[in-house]
């Protein structure tokens, strides 16, 4: 079967999916959805449908990015509109299934959106949902809209047409198209993708490799997981195009083991590609041969660094080496290797299909296109978004993300994970692009954005990231191994009330040395969270040192817990939850906290219903 026949058959199957003849239920069942209860909801729906002998089809789809509203269910009755319902908790499940699935009743109270352009009664069309406004979904084009295990869905929505097109082009033309699109590496460093491909394609060797870096290790980042789970073929197609362009015959996807669902979806995808002649020998009759192997990581953050990743793929300890030689000259098994991140590769098919000019209309002069971000932390609407580069932080945090919950004040947004930094309110109006973030002392990174409010302590955050990089340092170069340990020691002292005058300057000196002298990206960027904290929040660090106070009430060793006798009703809740017996008293009498015994765990404050616990 040639590709146009394949596509025709896929379109046929898609049309019966897209305009269903009986009730169709789409359940958002990515890892996020499952964590919010999607699996239980799926079995409730199935058993209700079976019990009533109702005719319906249930599909597990990926993530729409509206994680705050999980679990999400889209319901379409024959000939009717598709309604997206959200927040279907176990308590609401029965009435939801009864009303919206078994019967065709509209429930505006549970509805998030109507899929389409027109509003329906009070229900907003999908693109008008506050979290969607301002988004441009290119990489996330299929996420949540297709069954990720069905290759026909992907093909029907334009998938693999870009590969078919690329195989008709010369390798140089494919590279030039990507070069002129302005696409830059979405893994964090932002190196121009087309240029990287060109280096590898020009390296003289009969054997070359292509690697997809899916070792998304930054805590707080889940863009790649979501794409792999929701639309694995976009990444696999991108890999085929990249392999063709650079002349690689073998590809590897290095996925972290914490993502079992992504691995499962990739396995299914690769098997289907073989069946369809999209992988293996003579792909689509072009003579191009390429195959892909999945390699699971084993829990080492440093393996996200490209030379460490290759060492791990070769079966060794994942330790980075100095560059040059760059992987494009000497990479995996000593052969020229091109390595790109998941998001970069998932974007490539759209660039080839629609052209570089179309892609480069989005973004800024130096940062073209769109970027996905994972919004999390103290933000109203958590989730996965995709916006044109150059969108302001304010628009992302307060527009798309809905601002800070519980009427708290915005303090900072952390970009770039352990390699980035905390940007304060003064940067809210800055555009998010590679250059601006770098000037501010942070980095774009892979796209994690953790929003922090006034209850977040900057010393605690700097300490948190430093502890992370110290643990994850591979230990081979001294500046990183010893430097992160020293920074952590100083920060621990500061957060425990043992800070000394001059500590901030010492911290800065150590941080700058680690940045300058470390061997790989992990060590070179590890000081960023510390340096940005000093640059923007020096006063807060100083309060820990000179006044022995944690203004955000986080550093437990600087906190004193006591009970307001006026407010305490003697309900004994605090005494029952206190792990050390510090909180005590007679029933119906005001309780007290024994300072000697108190470990400042905060359990009492969490339990107290009368606001009687005072933290100082």
């Amino acid at each position, binding site marked *: 079967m040639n590709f146009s026949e394949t596509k025709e058959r896929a379109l046929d199957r898609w049309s019966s999916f897209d305009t269903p003849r009986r009730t169709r239920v789409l359940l958002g069942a990515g890892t*996020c959805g*499952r*964590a*919010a209860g999607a699996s239980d909801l799926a079995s409730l729906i199935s058993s209700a449908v079976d019990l009533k002998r109702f005719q319906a089809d249930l599909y597990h789809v990926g993530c729409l990015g509206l994680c705050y509203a*999980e679990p999400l269910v889209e319901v379409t009755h024959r000939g009717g509109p598709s309604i997206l319902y959200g927040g279907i908790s176990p308590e609401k499940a029965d009435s939801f299934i009864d009303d919206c699935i078994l019967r065709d009743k509209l429930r505006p109270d549970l509805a998030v959106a109507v899929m389409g352009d027109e509003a329906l009664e009070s229900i907003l069309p999908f693109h008008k949902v506050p979290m969607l406004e301002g988004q441009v979904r290119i990489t996330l084009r299929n996420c949540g809209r297709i069954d990720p295990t069905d290759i026909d869905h992907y093909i029907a929505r334009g998938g693999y047409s870009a590969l078919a097109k690329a195989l008709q082009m010369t390798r140089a033309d494919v590279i030039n198209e990507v070069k002129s699109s302005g696409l830059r590496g979405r893994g964090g460093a932002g190196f121009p993708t087309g240029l990287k491909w060109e280096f590898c394609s020009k390296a003289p060797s009969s054997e070359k490799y292509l690697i997809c870096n899916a070792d998304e290790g930054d*805590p707080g980042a889940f863009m790649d997981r979501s794409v792999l789970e929701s639309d694995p073929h976009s990444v696999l197609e991108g890999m085929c195009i990249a392999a063709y362009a650079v002349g690689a015959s073998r590809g590897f996807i290095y996925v972290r083991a*914490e993502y079992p669902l992504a691995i499962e979806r990739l396995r299914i995808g690769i098997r289907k590609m073989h069946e369809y002649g999209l992988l293996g020998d003579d792909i689509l009759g072009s003579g191009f041969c390429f195959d892909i192997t999945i390699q699971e*990581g084993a829990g080492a953050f440093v393996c996200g660094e490209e030379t460490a990743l290759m060492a791990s793929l070769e079966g*060794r300890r994942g330790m980075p080496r100095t560059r040059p030689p760059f992987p494009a000259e000497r990479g995996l098994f000593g052969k020229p290797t091109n390595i790109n991140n998941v998001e970069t590769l998932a974007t490539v098919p759209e660039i080839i299909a629609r052209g570089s000019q179309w892609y480069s209309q989005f973004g800024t002069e130096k940062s073209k296109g769109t970027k996905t971000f994972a919004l999390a932390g103290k933000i109203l609407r*958590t989730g996965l978004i995709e916006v044109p580069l150059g969108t302001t932080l304010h628009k992302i945090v307060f527009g798309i993300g809905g601002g800070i919950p519980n009427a708290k004040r915005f303090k900072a947004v952390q970009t770039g994970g352990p390699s980035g930094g905390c940007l304060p309110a003064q940067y809210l109006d800055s555009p998010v692009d590679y250059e601006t973030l770098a000037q501010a002392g942070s980095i774009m990174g892979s796209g994690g954005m953790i929003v922090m409010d006034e209850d977040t302590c900057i010393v605690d955050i700097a300490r948190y990231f430093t502890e992370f990089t110290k643990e994850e340092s591979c230990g081979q170069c001294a500046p990183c191994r010893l430097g992160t340990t020293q920074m952590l020691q100083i920060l621990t002292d500061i957060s425990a009330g043992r800070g000394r005058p001059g500590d901030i300057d010492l911290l800065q000196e150590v941080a700058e040395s680690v940045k300058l002298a470390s061997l790989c990206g992990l060590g070179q960027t590890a000081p960023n969270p510390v340096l940005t904290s000093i640059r923007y929040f020096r006063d807060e660090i100083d309060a820990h040192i000179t006044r022995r106070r944690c203004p955000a009430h986080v550093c437990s060793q600087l906190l004193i817990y006591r009970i307001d006798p006026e407010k305490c009703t003697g309900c004994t809740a605090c005494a029952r939850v206190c792990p050390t017996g510090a909180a005590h008293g007679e029933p119906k009498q005001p309780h007290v906290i024994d300072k000697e015994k108190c470990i400042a765990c905060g359990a009492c404050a969490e339990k107290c219903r009368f606001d009687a616990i005072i933290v100082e």
Partner: protein
Amino acid sequence: MKSRDSSGPDTAQDVNRSGTPSHQFSPDELDARLREVFGNFTGEGTELMPVLQSVQAALGYLPLDALCRVAEFTRIPPSTVYGVVTFYSQFYLQPQGKYKIKVCQGTACHVRGGKAIMNAVSRKLGISPGETTDDLKFSLERVACFGSCALAPVMVVNDRVYGRMNPDKAIRTIEGLQ
């Protein structure tokens, strides 16, 4: 966040002596299971990681005897195999609990109270992160990030992800397993 088995071989044997019989492998049984795993590989040195992962999947952990056999099979020195195993946090030299409780300490979980959950679970089970209960029922682990940040704080039991946790919910979840 690595919960490395820094304790090495002695502890592994100790646990074996006092552990439940299901985690001890007789030489014949070990041989049979390893043969089955090795049957899926060619024995090239570059296969070391997938071989180790498959052995661990078959045995539940990586006993030293098994590592020596892997070394023979891949023709890699045992010391190098041991070096690789101890580099990665998800290779275990000791038997693991039936329920692996992983409490996420990622950034989003951290700012939303992941530490309080870890403390509560640790107190409940009476073990620290990286340890396993004596009855081999529970292992506790810190994990840097599961990528379910939007539902932070998160706890994972075996492969099941529990989102929007608090210390109480975490304890109840564990009680539900007992």
